């Protein structure tokens, strides 16, 4: 069984993972991958980006589990088809007592960096060296908010954590046909620091981790996210008041610096994916903790697409001595992007599933309540389970709420994505790059409507009825119906190519 371990480092890593989850929910395929194991690496476990992503991953995992619990639904197909697990779920032997979470357990560092390195227990000489290598701010900053754009701090802190049991277990469980992928930003703190360290520790035969040969041989890729946004800078008064902030003016400077360093010092990867963009309007400035919950962004979704791209590369073509470098091209340079900017393959493999998911979400949220008498609804005893406050159907409901937020956020910041119009109620106009022709006055030319979809749903279930309609079965009943129905309308009504 080929697996993909994704290390999503820092806030950017979490946000890319959020987009990836949406893609997987839509049914975007991960080639040659039987199981995805995302690992979020961030000492700032209260980071808004991280917690949101973790919740989303959990929800996805539950939905996938509910859909496939009885083995009736083929794995890897349709909505929520990609299997996804935490490290702990791999640990069937139950060794080491891993926490069942997607977040790499750092044990909750709440010290300052100075306390963390035990500054006061070092010699006068080493204290002098530390004073030379780190600013007083860095030394004094509390580590529970991440590394705040100080990867040099991160490199020290994270290195001391690679020997944690999660990492050992991961190394122990690694197979030669597994792959590893890293997601990090280059301009922040945690990602920039953690990523090269994780690579070093993955590859270093002397790192003390198990299976050095396997670690040396598994293919690894990485997404390096360059700046694509900037943050509002505090006013003179706020600065004078000593308010905490992230200096995004330094993003580019840091990026260039880090890139120079990577150019000489980053080894051990088969493929690298660079992604960056000129920044648009500044975003609100939150230096970590729960407030750091940045709005989803097009580049995160595009970044997530590096993963299927990497998995699609045959192992035979990966060469660590000549790593493959990648960049993402849009068809045109416009402030707002839709699916038309993507090449045909991606429109087929990514846009189509997303459109299907969007129809699903849209219909589920706004039209399902009208279907109580529809055959697919009654045959599936859907009414018994909706609305749901818990269980799989509640998860689905919540997932679509998340989805809508995600989609809405994508449309806010430049470069904006509005390939799917989040507030568009007319199914004909929901896909930006393909409007379904409809005539207001010609009943035969209504295009795509809720009724169309209902009919397709009824068609999908046919004459069958759901036996033993417990919540997971009702979920599968619905999902499978939407699998077919949305595929049909995209194919026949939208006629998306």
């Amino acid at each position, binding site marked *: 069984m080929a697996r993909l371990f994704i290390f999503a480092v820092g806030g950017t890593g979490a946000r890319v993972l959020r987009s990836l989850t949406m893609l997987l929910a839509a049914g975007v395929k991960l080639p040659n991958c039987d199981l995805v194991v995302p690992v979020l690496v961030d000492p700032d476990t209260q980071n808004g980006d991280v917690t949101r992503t973790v919740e989303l991953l959990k929800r996805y995992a539950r939905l996938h589990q509910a859909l496939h619990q009885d083995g009736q639904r083929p794995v890897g197909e349709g909505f929520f088809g990609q299997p996804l697990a935490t490290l702990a779920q791999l640990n069937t032997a139950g060794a080491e007592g891993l926490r069942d979470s997607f977040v790499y357990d750092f044990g909750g560092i709440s010290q300052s960096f100075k306390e963390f*390195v*035990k500054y006061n227990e*070092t*010699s006068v*000489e*080493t204290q*002098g*060296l530390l*004073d*030379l*290598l*780190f*600013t007083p701010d*860095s030394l004094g900053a509390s580590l529970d908010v991440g590394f705040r*754009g*100080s*990867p*040099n701090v991160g*490199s*020290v802190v994270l*290195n*001391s954590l690679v020997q944690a049991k999660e990492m050992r277990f991961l190394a122990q469980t690694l197979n030669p046909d597994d792959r590893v992928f890293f997601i990090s930003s280059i301009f922040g703190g945690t990602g920039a620091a953690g*990523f090269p*360290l994780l690579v*070093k520790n993955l590859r270093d035969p002397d790192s003390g981790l198990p299976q050095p040969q396997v670690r040396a041989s598994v293919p690894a890729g990485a997404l390096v996210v*360059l*700046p694509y946004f900037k943050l509002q800078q505090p006013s003179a008064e706020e600065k004078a008041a000593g308010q905490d902030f992230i*200096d995004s*003016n*330094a*993003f*580019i*400077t840091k*990026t*260039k*610096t*880090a*890139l*120079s*360093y990577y*150019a000489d*010092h980053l080894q051990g990867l088969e493929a690298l*994916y*660079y*992604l*960056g*963009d*000129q920044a648009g309007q500044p975003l609100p400035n939150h230096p970590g903790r729960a407030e750091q919950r940045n709005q989803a962004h097009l580049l995160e979704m*595009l970044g997530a697409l590096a993963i299927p*791209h990497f998995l699609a590369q045959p192992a035979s073509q990966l060469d660590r001595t000549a*790593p*493959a470098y990648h*960049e*993402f*091209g*849009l*068809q*045109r340079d416009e402030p707002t992007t839709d699916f038309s900017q993507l090449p045909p*393959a*991606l429109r087929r493999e990514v846009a189509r599933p997303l459109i299907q998911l969007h129809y699903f979400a849209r219909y589920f949220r706004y039209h399902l309540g009208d279907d109580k008498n529809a055959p697919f609804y009654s045959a599936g005893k859907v009414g018994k389970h909706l609305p749901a406050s818990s269980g799989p159907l509640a998860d689905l409901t919540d997932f679509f709420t998340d989805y809508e937020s995600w989609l809405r956020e994508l449309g806010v910041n430049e470069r904006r994505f509005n390939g799917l119009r989040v507030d568009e109620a007319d199914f004909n106009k929901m896909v930006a790059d393909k409007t379904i022709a409809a005539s207001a006055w010609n009943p035969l030319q209504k295009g795509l409507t809720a009724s169309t979809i209902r009919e397709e749903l009824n068609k999908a279930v046919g004459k069958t009825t759901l036996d033993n309609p417990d919540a997971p079965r009702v979920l599968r009943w619905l999902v499978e119906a939407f699998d077919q129905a949305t595929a049909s309308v995209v194919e026949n009504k939208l006629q998306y190519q």
Partner: protein
Amino acid sequence: MAKILRLHRTGPSTHEGWGRTGKIGKNEIEGPGGILDPEGARAERVAVALPSPFARLHLVETALAFVASPAGAAQPDSVHHRLVGQFWDVWELVFNYFQRRGPGQRLELRPWRRDTELARLRENPATRSLADVLTLYLNDSRFANLRELELLYFPDANGGAPQLVGGTSPLTLFFPAPVPRALPVQRPQGGGFYLDGRYVGLAQREQAFQDFVYQSFVADATLARLAPAVRDVLDPSILTKWNLAGTAQLADYPALTDRTGNQVEVAGVVVRVRPDEGVIRSSDFTIAPTRRPLPAGALPLVLRPGLQAPGKKYFNNTLFADTGSAVPAADPRPLADRTLPGPELPYPYLTLNDLLEETLLAVPYEVDNSRFETGQLSVAPGYQPSVWPLLPVTARYFDYFTSADLAAQLSLSLEPECVRVKLRVPVSSGGTIDYERAYYPNPRTSGLGRLLVTNVAISVFPFVKILNAPQYNDFYKVMLIDANNIDVSLLTKNIELRFGVNSRALSEAGTEQSATAYRRTAKTGTDEGSTYYEVRGTHFDYLEIISPAPAAGRALVVPKWREVQQGTKEFRFAIDFGTTNTHVAYHDGPNQPPQPLAFGPDDSAVALLKKATDEPERTPYDRLFRGIEDDPARNIQLKRWQLYQQREFVPPLLGTGGSPYQFPIRTATSEAAGFPVEPPRLLANVNVGFGINTEEQTNESYHTNLKWGDPSEMARHRVRAFFREMLLLFKYKAALHGGNLAATQVVWFAPLSFSEFSRGLYQREWDTLFREVFHTSRGTTYLPESSVPYFFLTRRGLVTPGPGENAAFVDIGGGTSDVLFYADQPDPATGLRKHKPVFSSSFRFAGNDLWGDGAADVRGSKDNGLVRFGLDSIAAAPLPPSAAGARRCLDVVLNNPQFGSEEVASLLFNYEKDFQFGERLLHAQHLRVLFYLHFGALVYHLGQVTALRGLAPPRYLCFTGRGSLYLRLLCPGASLRPLEQLASTLLAKVMQVPVPENFKIVLADDPKQTTANGGVLATGLDAQSTAEEPPLVQPIGTGSTDAATELRHLQPADITEDVKKAVIANVEHCLDLLLSDPDLTRLQSSLGIKNPPGLVLRDLRAALGDSFNLSRQRYADTLPRGEAIPETLFFLPLRHALYVLSRELREQALV
């Protein structure tokens, strides 16, 4: 064209979706199409985006590349510029390391040693992870050769914590600290202050620095390999120019060293700096010292205000020119922190106040230039100074010169208005720089010195330095009399002394060498203060007088030590330490006659700062102290130097030169009030009381009656101090006269009555002190007191016993009389006959029983009849004016409640010339019977003992000891015939056998000296016989001839009434003989004795019983339980009775 989502502006741009491109490398980052950083210059904090703990080191490379790039050129205020500016700042600071003036201003380098520090971090589990991550990144190839990083600290001018400014780097040689504060040092060129955040490129910096950097990269291939990022930003055309010229070389740039002196290297690249251009390599003004070794540090230049030195080189090749106007008279900075006037280069220099005081202290007497350095002193013609200058030279002078130099270099000119002082300081160019200052009593303009008079007296003991045996120069005492007590408000301000040797100040706390003070007499409105300094472990080169107001200032006193070489003579000193008197005799070779210890003007052990007056008509002793004119109106007074010298210190002369002191001396100490409660310190709180009989004022500092028997600790301290001072005097005497100190011998005596234990204690004490003072492992020599006269008298031919003739030696001391009886007997071993001691005896019947206040415990009644008679007769007629001094001394003794009749008698005899006490006694017929009885009782007892031992009467009866002086009073003529008749008659009657026809009494000429002299002469004689101790015979005293009963040992309780009766009966028999036997009474007239018949006998008989009881009770009270009474009981009835009789006789005479 697709839109590639990237930041750089180069590379393929045709694909859509994820597509293959190239690595983002240097060109993509900083190349023409590289990443634009429009906001970079607005960064609030320097970005540290490198995922390495050593990010800050890498960052410098990045910043250098950026600044050199076109993008950098477009953004001259970027953070990278700031960083590069700081980078060059740090390098230039290091380059200019020596430009900082003083060592305290220079960068401090502290190494961070890789192996050591990582190992340390690894040892502690808490810091192991830090070690791991540092190791992980230090394994990077570019750190591979890095053994240590130097941390650079800039010192804080105000003594605060130094600022960390940067470190060395294996990537760019240096890197700056994060967020550094601007330093208070201006860039030599380029404007602003170091680390002020401004970007100043290399090209804007000082040419010397630019040249150095370019040469470094051309000439040092290791540097070019180490720091390519730096080399890449250098101007290629300049590099080429240096390369082509081929002149690049680094030899002129010294390697920087850390504080341990190790060359600073960065991964094999030597860190070089600008040569120390502030180093003074040569100067015409460098001091030319003579002292070795010199103090550490550079030799200072010698400058002074207004110095003109045309053509002279100030330093290196710089002329002095008119620098003189910039030289201050005083520079408050420590020498090492000074900068040269004018260029302010860090270099030490001396100026006027460093060597010459601003105040000249003068003393109201002429300084003895034979013993103390006075410089070349000249007095203006016709001017008669009343005060004389001390040396206004600072102690610092002795850092460079010796006292011999001072004699040549210092001149003082005494003028009516002022004292002009010139100190000629030799400098390296061959000449001298002359420091001059005129000192006026009331200087009216600034720049002039002030002349103040301080009333200070100083004496030094011993005044000698043994050149070839410095271990003996280990104990010096300096007496300081502070008479600045006219102004009562300044009484709490005392003059202090500081001592220096070999350009080092002696501290109080030194373990090997020290100088400590003891303030003995507090300064009051009436008393001068006296302080005694003790210099231990060394001599001293100078002492510094630190005088407070009213004569605030400092001055030096530089002794011209009497320098001697240790000789080869073997001195032998013999000390007869008696309870009452002490005598010392010595000689300096076996065949030399003994002489009493004396110190004359030529070998005085003491040096007074004051010069003796030139008054030939006066004795040398008087001249020492004369010539100080008290003049309180002018704040001059120093009238009691002599008094303190005599009472608390050491008299300068002894036994000669008109000294009031000579051996034998009264055994006494003089003690400070604190002595009983302080640790004893000789010549501080206790000293030999030479002055006891010259005190003209009542003084309670004296203590007499020194003896071991006294069990109190203070008594032992007292005796020990007395011994020690004696030994110091011996040492000085021997040293000064060619003695070999280690071979010096000291002989001492103890009476036969001493127990073995007591004598052991003495031996231990003498040996300990002797070894300490003379640095020898040998011991002292003990001789029995009584055996000594034999040697002395036989050696002198005064006693020549023939075959079968015996000789008795009686040594009468103050409290004890010892008898040693020599008989001609066959030696049991050889069979040959020889004279040897056959018995001894010791009893407490001696001088004090004539002159003292009886056997009662209470002292101080001073009513002994003989003494009262003397005092009465002195009072009866006016004394000559010449006796006024003696009279004052007498009054002092009389007023001292501690003193008794014997002290008065001692003083009276001491001033015989003035009081004629002896003369008066010759005519006191009514009292002379006391001498008669004393002598008679002794002879009577001697006869009984001799008979008891079965021996024949002696042919010689010899008397020694100070107590025997009265025999001269009893028999004043040249012939001792009457005395001999008395003795032989008495002996014949007691022993019932004829006394030899040629019976002879021998009185030593100087009875007290005899013992000591004998001790000296005992050298080389038959040591065994000398020390031989015959049996001690102590009969009970009943006169019985039954040895078994008579020679019993009695404890106080054994003295029954029968014993008492028997003893008293024997004494009465003796008295009857002496006072009633016609053969004897007949002799009384020839001895000048006249008493009413029967009177004496009656009075005595009445007193015998009480006298016996008194002494018996005393033994009962004081003798430890179980001990026998250590003497015969025969004298017990007489001891107090004689005293009672003396009072009776005197009173009856008055009636």
